[in-house]
Every structure is written in C-alpha cells, then in structure tokens.
C-alpha cells in the first residue's frame, strides 16, 4: 500500500465516528440541546476563535502543560538514573515512590491551589507531580536493567566513573525512558485540564467548564475538541522525536 494512502486508512474509524455523529444529530437521534452536531461544534469553534480568545486560552494551557511536563522530564530522568546508580538515593526515594504511586495526583490540586494560589504555579505543579512518577519509575527500571557490560566497556575505554550514568546508562535506557515520557505526556493534558476546571479565569479547562455552566454546549464541545487536537498533535510530535532519537534501533 502506498504511504499516501496508509495514513488516511489508518484514521478511517475516526472519520466514520465523525460522520455517524453528524448523521445521528441530523436525524434527530441526539438531543440537540445537550449533544450538538459536528457542524454546530465546528461553527462554535470558529466563533470561539474569533470572539473568545480561544487561541490565547490554548496557548496558556499549553504553556502550563509543557512547563510541568518538561520540569518533570528533567527531574524524573535525573532522579531515576541516580536511584539506579546510588543505593543511598534509592533508599531515600523508593519508599516515597511506593507510597505515592497509587495516589491520584489530581486529588492534590486543591492543596496546590491553597499553597501556590490560583495562578499558573499551582497548575504547573499539578502537571509536574502527576508526570513525575511514571518518568522516575520507567527511568529507574530502564537504568537498572541495562547491560552491565556496556558500563564496563565504557569504563575500560576511559570514561570516568562519575560520567558513566550520563554517557552510557542514559542513552542505553532511552528507549524505555521514552515510553515512560509518552505516558506522562498524555497525563500532562489530563492534569492541565483538571487543574483548570477547579479554579482560574483562563485556559482551555476553564473554557470547557464555564461554557458548560452557561449552557453553550456547542462551545463546550469546541473547547474539548481544541484539547483533543492539542493532545494529539503533542503525541505525534513526540513520536516523531522518538523515531529520530532512537533511529539506531531500526
């Protein structure tokens, strides 16, 4: 099959659902007051973009989500590697990880708001904390599982011992780290929207909840659509990056 055809065919089920949605609305199978049609949603999307600063809300949400995600990536990878390399770090962090792993991070959002206020920092903190754990855990497991003889090879080829975690363990563990990062990326959007639901005057999560409260369901659907598109685009970008960083695996 040619490459030009493969992508549209892969996404065929999505187009099918969109068409079914539109048909169901047109045929009156859906209650139009709570379930707007696809075309109504797209019209609302344009209206929001023109009149309600949809783009500004989206940028702000994206800023919160990406700051939290990148901070979590840096802290998570560094601490995961250190945990694998140092018994002391492992003894300190492992009980904390085990205790907080099952905790739904969104439960902490009200606390962050209490401590950090209703601005960006509470939302970034919520995204950061939620993303941190899957990144630490996948990095730790990956770093612990690498082939010991890679480390020995680098050591005997002259790499100083303190640099080995960064020059050898990190690249060797990268494939697994990347899959942890991808899970965290999906979580980052969830947490961003959840945090924005709770409080604040801006952001896509705020837009969804306020439009819903006003009964503008087409607008609300349009805002949900905006989050979906952003999340999808971020994931595609991530996969592109993944393929480039891990080209050596092919």
């Amino acid at each position, binding site marked *: 099959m040619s490459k030009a055809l493969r992508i549209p065919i892969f996404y065929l089920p999505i187009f099918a659902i969109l068409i079914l949605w539109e048909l169901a609305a047109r045929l009156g199978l859906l209650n139009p007051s709570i379930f707007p049609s696809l075309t109504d949603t797209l019209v609302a999307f344009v209206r929001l973009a023109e009149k309600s600063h949809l783009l500004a809300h989206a940028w702000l949400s994206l800023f919160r989500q990406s700051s939290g995600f990148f901070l979590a990536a840096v802290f998570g990878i560094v601490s995961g590697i250190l945990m694998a390399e140092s018994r002391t770090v492992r003894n300190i962090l492992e009980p904390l990880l085990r205790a907080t792993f099952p905790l739904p991070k969104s439960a902490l959002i009200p606390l962050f708001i209490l401590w950090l206020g209703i601005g960006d920092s509470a939302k970034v903190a919520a995204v950061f904390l939620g993303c941190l754990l899957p990144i630490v855990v996948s990095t730790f497991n990956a770093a612990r599982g690498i*082939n010991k*003889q*890679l480390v*020995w*090879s*680098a*050591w*005997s*080829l*002259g*790499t100083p011992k303190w640099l080995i975690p960064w020059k*050898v363990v990190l*690249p*060797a563990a*990268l494939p697994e780290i990347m899959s942890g990062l991808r899970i965290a990326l999906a979580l980052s959007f969830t947490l961003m929207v959840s945090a924005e639901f709770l409080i604040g005057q801006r952001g896509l999560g705020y837009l969804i909840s306020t439009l819903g409260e006003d009964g503008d369901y087409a607008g609300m659907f349009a805002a949900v659509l905006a989050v979906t598109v952003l999340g999808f685009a971020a994931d595609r970008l991530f996969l592109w990056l993944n393929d480039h960083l891990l*080209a*050596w*695996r*092919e």
Partner: protein
Amino acid sequence: MSLIDIDGVCKNYTIEGDRELTVIDHIDLSIREGEFVSIIGPSGCGKSTLLHMIGGFVPSTAGEIRVGGAAVHSPGPDRGIVFQHFALFPWKTVLGNVEYGLAERGIGKLERRDTAQSFIDMVKLSGFENTYPNRLSGGMQQRVAIARMLACEPSILLMDEPFGALDAQTRKILQEELRELWQRFRKTVVFVTHDVREAVFLSQRVVVMSARPGRIKTIVETGLGPDASRAAIDEKADELWDLLRDEVVRTLDEERRGL
C-alpha cells in the same frame, strides 16, 4: 619477564544473605609480555571472574593482581576487553564505537577519525562505518568490538569467550583473524573459552581450571606455532580434553545434586 602477576587471588561471593560461595580459590599465575594464554574450565569455575579481576572490574577477596608491577584496582587503558555478547554502544555507529575510547582520551576529531578508520579497515569492516550495531551480524559486531579495543592501543587484550556466541563458521574465520592479528602485534592476550580446540589453536599456554571452587588444575604448553598441522592441533586438544573432562563431569554432577 612477566607482565601480569596473579598472586594468591581468591574470590568469594555472599549469596542468599549469609552463605559464602568460593568461586576462585588461591590462584597464582604469571603471564609474560607478548604471550597468548587461554583459560579453560567447566562453566562456573570462575574463569570469567578471574578475567574480570585482571580487568579491574571486580575486586578480589584476597591476594593481589599486578600489571607491570602495579597493583590493579580499577580498569585502565593498558587493558582492553571484549565480551561474549559484544557490548557495543547500540546508539553509536561502527565509527562512533571505534572512536569512543579515542575521544575519551581527548584525541582531536581528525586524528580520531583516521585512527578509527585504520582499525575498521583492519577488521575488514570498511563500508560499514555509519551502520548501527544492530544491523550487523554477530561476527561483524565482534569485529567492531575488537577494533574498538585495539584503537586504544592497550598492551593487554582480555577476551571473555569472544567467539562463544557466534556460529561455527564465523567463529573459525575470526579465530584465524585473531591469530593473524596477534602474530602481527604480539600483544599479551588472556583468552577465556569453553572451546578446547580454540584454546590450542590460538595460544601458547593453556591454563586448565578445576570445577568450583576454581583452582588451577594444570598449565599446558601448547605453542604449536602458525604452521601446526590439523592433526597436531587435534592431538593436543584431545590431551587437554582428557584433563578437562573429569572437571566438567564433576560440575554436571554437582548441578544435578543442586537441583
């Protein structure tokens, strides 16, 4: 004059919390500069552990290993190593792998590239400079590992069952190539293997180790020279196998009891 001195070396491991397992029990061995020495023994006899201790990767429990008169505490550029499963950096190309040790030594980019290229040519991998290891066969990967080791110009080559993961045909070719390399450079080689014939074919002396705890059972001078006939190699290999056979049987019996 000996280059490597192994002096009363023991290695114990603590297993299951408190039980002590003696892997290597009091080994004395001297290896001369430029000598090719093989170590054979049943699995679990500690022959790889001994090699790793010479490399400085694993500390000994008792005794001392000296290289050129200085006690070994860590790996050093004087000792290169290759492993059974190659241990190439999979995220680096063939060229990147071979250049790695040179870069760590601070050698400039152009010189590094030239040196690496000459070693890639030496192991007959010209044309594969920009290929990643997982696109190469096992035999090619081990050639890269050998080039990566040689590029750093170590005086001692430590080889840990280097051809053990290769198919019989590739193994034979690499054995011949290694012998050529050794005849050309006369580096000191310590070569761990399961394969008695390989040991006879390559080395000047073969150290036969006993079943665990690993001790030196005997040392056999092989040194058949490059013109040795197939018959002479086979005869020597049979002689060595007779020495080794009891130890292998003993290991298998103990494994059975252990189960």
